């Protein structure tokens, strides 16, 4: 079953297009990573899916229904971000006790155990928590709600490394025991990529790549050698990044369409091939120029 279907989705703020003719579908019970630079439209997309924002044009369906102002969608979707709002008058424990009245599948026992594990105090108030602790509390709510569609927007903001690790593991464990569709947006692809099944890469409000994460790792290949040779070799290939190393050598990243023999030929002709990590591929694909920040500093 398709959990999210969107077709030509566009969202305009004033004159800027936050989402620009975006089309993709998300299948049931997959963990999909939503990756993109700041301002790529990740949060806007998630908020439209959650029914908070209204699309300007195009079509969006969540559980086959339009999400905006939809009670069924709201009951089956939870959206967690670092601007979560919880009532200031309730203590942390009271907030957790409110949750099961709204979320039918709420796992109260798990919530309690996570609450204790991360050493929250029942009588504390949400607004008094540090940024990282807020994120951790949000994460508990997001996990324990067990919504059919669970969305985390930069969930690890402010968390320290240990808590981040705990979060990823908790997410995975609860996903295994209770499979659901999860959308996870993050700047740290290298941290989350092992958890993901699919990746959805946004650039400028458009879908740039949507594929299993395993394929992303083989999507591009790095090649290094003498500049002249690289230029000759890469002539009819899709180059996504280049960088000069020393005086006469170049490192280039090209789309990996090489056959084994081609790779072998490259190797024997003195070029070295290296795999490119998923997060590097994403950085290269989403940067505006092929040289990255170096282009800013180059004179010509």
């Amino acid at each position, binding site marked *: *079953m398709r*959990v999210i279907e969107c077709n030509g989705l566009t969202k305009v703020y004033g004159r800027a297009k936050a989402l620009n003719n975006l089309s993709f579908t998300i299948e*049931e*019970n997959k963990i999909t990573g939503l990756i993109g630079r700041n301002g790529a439209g990740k949060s806007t997309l998630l*908020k439209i899916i959650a*029914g*908070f*924002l*209204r699309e300007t044009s195009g079509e969006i369906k969540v*559980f086959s229904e339009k999400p905006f*102002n*939809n*009670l*069924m969608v*709201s*009951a*089956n979707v939870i959206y967690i971000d670092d*601007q*979560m*709002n*919880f*009532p200031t*008058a*309730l203590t942390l424990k*009271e907030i957790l006790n*409110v*949750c099961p*009245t*709204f*979320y*039918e*599948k709420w796992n109260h026992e798990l919530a309690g155990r996570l609450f204790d594990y991360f050493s929250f105090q029942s009588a504390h108030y949400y607004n008094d928590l540090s940024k990282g602790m807020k994120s951790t509390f949000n994460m508990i*709510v997001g996990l324990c709600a067990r919504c*059919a569609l669970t969305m985390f927007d930069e969930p690890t903001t402010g968390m320290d490394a240990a808590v981040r690790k705990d979060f990823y593991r908790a997410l995975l464990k609860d996903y295994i025991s209770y499979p*659901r*569709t999860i959308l996870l947006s993050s700047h740290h692809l290298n941290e989350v990529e092992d958890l993901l099944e699919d990746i959805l890469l946004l650039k400028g409000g458009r879908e740039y790549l949507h594929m299993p994460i395993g394929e992303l790792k083989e999507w591009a290949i790095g090649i290094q050698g003498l500049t002249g040779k690289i230029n000759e070799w890469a002539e009819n290939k899709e180059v996504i990044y280049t960088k000069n190393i020393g005086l006469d050598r170049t490192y280039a990243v090209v789309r990996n369409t090489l056959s084994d023999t081609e790779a072998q030929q490259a190797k024997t002709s003195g070029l070295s091939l290296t795999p490119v990590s998923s997060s590097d591929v994403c950085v290269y694909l989403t940067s505006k120029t092929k040289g990255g920040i170096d282009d800013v500093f180059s004179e010509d």
Partner: protein
Amino acid sequence: MSLVKTSMLDIVINLYKYKLKAYKQVFMSLIFIQLLAVLFSFNGVGMMGSSTESIEIDVQFYSADLVITFTILWAFITAILITTSAYKNDDFAFVTNRLSSNLSNMVFLLTASIVGGITAMLSTSLMKIIMYLFGGHGHIAANLSLSEVVLGYSSTILYILLFSGLGYFIGTLVQVSRIFVAVIPGIFIGAGILGAGSRGFEWVKSIYQFIFTEPSILLFVLKVLVIVGLLFTGSIALSNRMEVR
């Protein structure tokens, strides 16, 4: 994948129950404001004295009108407050849509009006007791029939509800566009100044008369309920397409 099915009624009831807990500071401020009003009222709202050569008559009027006025003000501000995005977003941390959020707010405001009305009237009794115990003035005129009591309570509640409805509508307007932050006070003050003398602003007076000088209690109830209904419906219509968070 099994999807949770919901009904509007369940959600509204859930939100309402949650708001009774989450908005408890609203009731705290009610207590504070009413106590303050009671305190002010002991100054007396009026005084009348006459004296002949041998007798001096000194009449002091005490009334809980101030408590009711303060409570109305409280209801008005509370209603505006819960339309602000901080409160609205609290709802959207959980399960809701705009309609259920609005409906639960309205039930909450109704509850608040009833509580505010009853406590405001009770503070009248409180004042009488205090006057009786500590005032040292002989006679307290306070004999009311049951029907008068019911009438007093219900009309107080309705006044409070009316102003909470007005506050809710104004708050929603402001949420729709910030322009109303300037426009609404402008209208009120302008109407107040101009309406006092000029004939062009007769309508302000007629609105006032339409609501507040209705001699028939049934008609009064009907009028208030219709107006409150219109204000709430207007608020729902205005906010139903609004984006949140």
